[in-house]
């Protein structure tokens, strides 16, 4: 073994360290980015190909039976709807499985929390990173749809932002689910009872106006529905205050899930 370096002198001037510091967030983000360089191919493949398959299957399948839905060509309807599916898939599952594995199996969080990083910063940085990825992956179905007739529009430039807010909310929700579950096997219950119904009752593949009234009311409590509506607004024209309400619900969902994820993760990591 070679000689070590002497310890640094204490920096008493920097005694106070606050909450949600940029350097702590950057540290966690850099860790995620460097790790991402080792697995980006597989994640990008599943996050873009899966929703594209949905898009093609529904687009060609239903598209041959139905030409227009809710005033849109069906391929436009499903192409814009699938954006929300891509965001959901690339955020909630990444957060659920990723945080559980890092916490329980790899013990990564023990290492991070031994550094000057708090649970709040850890959860926030990880949700931000997943949201950034979701905002990119969410655009894939939109780009594919353009090859099948979706006309480009300036409003589409807002889609990554809508995907980011939605992805942040779902990433936080995934971290919360992970913190509440004792076993990774229990994720199946959440997927079957919560995520799959939400994914179907969001106006992605068929309009919710055709559903029973109770399902239409339930859709307003589904963040994915608000994402779908906002994406359609960005692509085909916004609907005034209704879209402001959609945005408000998405922001509320994101902030609520973020705080709950911090609370849940703290309970699991700090004895």
């Amino acid at each position, binding site marked *: 073994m070679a000689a070590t370096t002497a310890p640094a002198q204490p920096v008493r001037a920097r005694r106070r360290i606050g909450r949600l510091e940029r350097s702590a967030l950057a540290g966690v983000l850099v860790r995620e980015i460097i790790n991402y360089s080792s697995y980006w191919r597989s994640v990008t493949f599943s996050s873009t190909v899966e929703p594209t398959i949905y898009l093609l299957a529904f687009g060609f399948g239903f598209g041959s039976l139905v030409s227009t839905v809710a005033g849109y060509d069906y391929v436009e309807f499903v192409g814009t709807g699938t954006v929300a599916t891509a965001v959901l898939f690339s955020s909630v599952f990444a957060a659920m499985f990723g945080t559980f594995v890092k916490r329980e199996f*790899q013990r990564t969080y023990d290492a991070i929390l031994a550094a000057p990083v708090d649970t709040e910063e850890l959860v926030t940085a990880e949700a931000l990173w997943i949201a950034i990825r979701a905002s990119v992956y969410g655009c894939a179905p939109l780009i594919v749809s353009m090859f099948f007739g979706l006309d480009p529009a300036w409003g589409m430039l807002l889609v990554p932002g809508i995907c980011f807010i939605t992805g942040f909310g779902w990433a936080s929700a995934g971290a919360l689910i992970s913190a509440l579950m004792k076993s990774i096997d229990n994720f199946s219950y959440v997927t079957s009872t919560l995520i799959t119904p939400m994914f179907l009752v969001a106006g992605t593949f068929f309009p919710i106006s055709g559903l029973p009234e109770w399902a239409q009311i339930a859709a307003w409590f589904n963040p994915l529905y608000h994402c779908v509506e906002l994406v359609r607004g960005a692509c085909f024209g916004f609907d005034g205050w209704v879209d402001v309400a959609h945005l408000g619900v998405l922001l509320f969902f994101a902030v609520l899930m973020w705080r709950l994820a911090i609370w849940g993760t703290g309970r699991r990591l700090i*004895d």
Partner: protein
Amino acid sequence: MAIRLRGVVKRFGAITAVNGFDLDVPEGTCVGLLGPNGAGKSTTMKLLTAQAIADEGTIDVLGYDLPKDSKVARAEMGVVPQLDNLDTTLTVEQNLRVFTYLYRVPRAQRRERIEAALEMANLADRRDTRADKLSGGMRRRLLIARALVHRPRLVLLDEPTVGLDPQVRQELWALIDALRSEGTSILMSTHYIEEAERLADTVTIMSHGEAVATGRPAELIEQHAGREAVEVYGAPAKLREVEAAARAGGMSTRRTGTSVAILRLDDATNGGPPEGERRPANLEDVFVLLTGEEIA
């Protein structure tokens, strides 16, 4: 004082893992925290990084009050965990790079610190090797390098050589000794007696969440086991007789598996110990005397 704990209590439901624990780690020294499994060593380590919050007592680390100022204290300390938590798909250098960010090493110094850590851990020629391709000893060295990449004033080593073969263990001992000689304060939990005896300036023996003895290894041996021990071998029935006679004569005994060790020979009141192999008393004798012979 690098670490000062007073009356620290940590409960997990009905179980009290740390029970009124006091500990001092003077600056620039290596203190060994010795105890059997379940004594509360790992919980104590978690309390020092605020990954566990004490129910009672005060914790002072590098002059900072925990858990209130734990984040700033963590910025000035490094932690080598008992369980390997490296990013296995990253290379050696990438693992260190991540922690230069987490520990807020200034941008201009990152390269130099990574090189110094690689050099110190003797991993410079493995910089591009993925962590999951390293041997157990190399991974452990990388964990230590990772904890030192920001040049901390205090290092917490939680069972640093557990599960490693003797050659690797000696290599790590040399590294820890070099750290100490450069003035870094070290708290090292271990259940390897030899490790504590060789590396620690002072030792605190922990049992059932409490400190049962504190002092320099030589002083603890002298105080609790005497200068010499006599090992008596024989059939179980004979060992039981020897044990009973030694205790009746004011001496202490401990089982070593195949023999009985008679300790505190100076306290003998019945003509001294029986015939047997004489050897210097050691810290293991003290450890077993103070923490008991039963397996928890």
